[in-house]
């Protein structure tokens, strides 16, 4: 029998972490899968104060330890798992971590955050981050337990669906509470939008990090920790904890009741969801996807993240005609509903929920999956695809499900789709390019840029390609006392802001909010909590033991925005890439957002104004030596 353990290593956190007086362990684990060598970067207070963790740490290592222009699927790319300063602390909503690297989908930054428990578990096992380089000769997985690390054989796991692989890992290590980050067949087959799944149902979904993991022959990272993530200064957090625990039921009533699926109908009705690959203003039969009809039939339980009382996640169990759906894979979130439903003109909740389950089992990003399938459906509709035994069709749920499987296995048209819609369009030609809805090659999330114009600017400027999470959603800034509006007012912005358009004030607001979101994703905490500055400052101060002001929050957010821009420029992107593809400018003739949307010129002006506000030149180049 083959030796299961290939390499071992151990290292332990700084004493104050072991004593429960620090939120950081001081250890970044470095694993070179080519040589099997493991070591630790010892980091101190200065490092955590500058970068916090998460996206900040991802960018730090990408900029310092990868050669410019490296192929995202080459051994030299890094795969970085990075919880943040707040991950695993007593703060509710702190069960998150970031995963990053160079994206095989876009060639830009890949930086995705996942909820659940894995990030907190890694810190409890004694590490603030893992930086993985190289490529193992045969499939392996990492097993991390309280400072001890093993590289183990994973030949028997290769090819397995995520839940099956997780079951085997837990069984062979003899602990059913092990937390896993793992890829499915899509990551192994280098699908350019494969996700990294955590405990099978939480995705670091976007930008193809699952393919980076697959390219390294790394099937999983299993973790188990029993240390406590402490705080340097507990009392500072008391007021914030009181505010959350006494108010979350009201503040987050929407999340408790239906979670993000509760917004499917309203976003559709207000023009926020793209339909039929951006060409329609309404989806016939949308009521079937509406929470009040969907929940009783599909949602059998609710789930949560580390220390979060909100429980916004859904568990879908379904036995019925057409499909069986297993609860272990969770349930679709709003974005998934939008991408696999209306975008593909599908109103069948069984098809959407089944496709979501398959995305989790194969390890696929649901947004890019839906975006690419909808794009392919339109190519098929226009007769641009020849010689395939199968092509998907708008409104046909079975063809959506078949597409997901074919993408993961790279079969037939699935092999084209696995490259993402932008590469596919290049292959097909000009007619197909007209149908693309991407930014920097990444499929747009389901917040229609024609309705949300700051979001459009954010899609164009994001260092990861289109993303809604490090962005400003105009509707929240248009409302008098949303968390966004309240944060903006504190920055001196005259909020609420107009719903439509890109006023100067709105671009400024976008700049501030992006900085704050970089802090959220570096700290790494849940963005559903309506944190205001005083809470964010208190949490960071309590964790770090240094006093963090609003000004410092912005200094950190700005630093990360600059690092992200430097990374983009270093990887060969130019201001020409800070834009959106054709479909974002396609005008609807009827419905709630008829005739709405930015022109290319307005978007360009917005990009230039953002550069100016950031102190960058007209190519978006930050001045040298700023930090």
């Amino acid at each position, binding site marked *: 029998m083959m030796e299961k353990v290939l390499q071992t290593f151990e290292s332990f956190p700084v004493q104050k972490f072991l004593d429960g007086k620090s939120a950081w362990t001081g250890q970044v684990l470095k694993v070179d899968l080519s040589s099997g060598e493991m070591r630790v970067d010892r980091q101190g207070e200065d490092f955590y104060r500058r970068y916090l963790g998460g996206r900040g740490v991802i960018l730090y290592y990408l900029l310092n330890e990868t050669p410019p222009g490296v192929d995202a699927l080459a051994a030299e790319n890094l795969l970085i798992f990075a919880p943040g300063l707040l991950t695993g602390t007593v703060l509710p909503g702190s069960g998150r971590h970031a995963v990053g690297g160079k994206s095989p989908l876009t060639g830009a930054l890949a930086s995705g955050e996942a909820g659940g428990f894995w990030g907190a578990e890694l810190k409890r096992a004694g590490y603030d981050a893992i930086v993985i380089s190289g490529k193992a000769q045969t499939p392996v997985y990492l097993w991390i337990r309280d400072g001890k690390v093993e590289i183990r054989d994973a030949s028997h796991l290769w090819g397995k669906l995520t839940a099956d692989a997780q079951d085997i890992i837990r069984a062979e290590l003899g602990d059913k509470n092990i937390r896993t980050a793992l890829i499915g067949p899509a990551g192994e087959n280098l699908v350019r939008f494969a996700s990294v799944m955590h405990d099978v149902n939480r995705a670091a979904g976007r930008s193809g990090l699952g393919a980076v993991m697959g390219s390294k022959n790394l099937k999983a990272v299993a973790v188990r920790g029993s240390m406590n993530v402490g705080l340097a200064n507990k009392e500072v957090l008391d007021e914030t904890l009181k505010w959350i625990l006494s108010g979350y039921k009201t503040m987050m009533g*929407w999340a408790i009741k*239906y979670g993000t699926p509760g917004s499917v109908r*309203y976003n559709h009705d207000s023009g926020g969801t793209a339909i039929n690959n951006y060409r329609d203003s309404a989806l016939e039969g949308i009521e079937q996807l509406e929470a009040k009809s969907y929940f009783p039939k599909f949602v059998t339980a609710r789930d949560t993240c580390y220390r979060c009382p909100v429980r916004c996640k859904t568990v879908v169990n379904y036995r019925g005609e057409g499909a069986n759906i297993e609860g272990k894979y969770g349930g679709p979130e709003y974005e998934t509903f939008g991408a696999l439903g209306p975008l593909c003109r599908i109103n069948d909740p069984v098809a959407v929920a089944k496709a979501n389950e398959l995305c989790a089992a194969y390890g696929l990003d649901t947004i890019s999956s839906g975006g690419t399938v909808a794009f392919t459906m339109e190519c098929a509709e226009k007769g641009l695809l020849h010689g395939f035994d199968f092509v998907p069709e708008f409104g046909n749920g079975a063809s959506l499900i078949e597409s997901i499987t074919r993408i993961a296995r790279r079969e037939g048209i699935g092999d084209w789709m696995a490259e993402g819609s932008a590469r596919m369009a290049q292959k097909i030609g000009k007619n197909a390019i007209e149908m693309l809805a991407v930014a920097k090659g990444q499929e747009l999330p*389901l917040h229609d840029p024609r*309705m949300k114009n700051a979001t459009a600017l954010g899609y164009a400027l994001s260092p990861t390609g289109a993303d809604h999470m490090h962005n400003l959603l105009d509707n929240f800034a248009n409302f008098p006392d*949303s968390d966004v509006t309240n944060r903006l007012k504190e920055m001196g912005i005259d909020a609420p802001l107009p*719903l439509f358009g890109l006023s100067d004030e709105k671009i400024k607001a976008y700049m501030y909010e992006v900085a704050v979101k970089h802090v959220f994703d570096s700290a790494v905490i849940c963005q559903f909590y309506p944190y205001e500055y005083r809470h964010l400052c208190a949490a960071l101060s309590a964790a770090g033991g240094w006093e963090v002001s609003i000004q410092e929050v912005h200094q950190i957010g700005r630093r990360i925005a600059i690092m992200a821009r430097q990374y983009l420029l270093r990887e060969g992107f130019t201001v020409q890439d800070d834009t959106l593809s054709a479909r974002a400018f396609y005008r609807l003739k009827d419905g709630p957002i008829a005739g709405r949307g930015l022109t290319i010129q307005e978007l360009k002006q917005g990009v230039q104004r953002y550069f100016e506000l950031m102190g960058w030149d007209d190519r978006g180049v930050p001045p040298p030596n700023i930090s």
Partner: protein
Amino acid sequence: MKEKQIKAIIQVERLPGEPRQSIEVVAGVTILEALASVGVSLQQPVVALVNGKTSDMNYVVRPGDYVVLLPQIAGG
């Protein structure tokens, strides 16, 4: 008849499944002012649909308008 001309209807949708509220308001003020004038408070951000078109919260309500307020929750 005259009475009708200066009024508009605002329909407030709550979370899915919860009863909606239909309110008659006086035209000539913004949606938010109209709500305040009848003492209705919103628990979460909304987007306004005015006669079927997505509109700004500072839209000034005109006589005969039919305004629907749709709750907006964070995406993800």
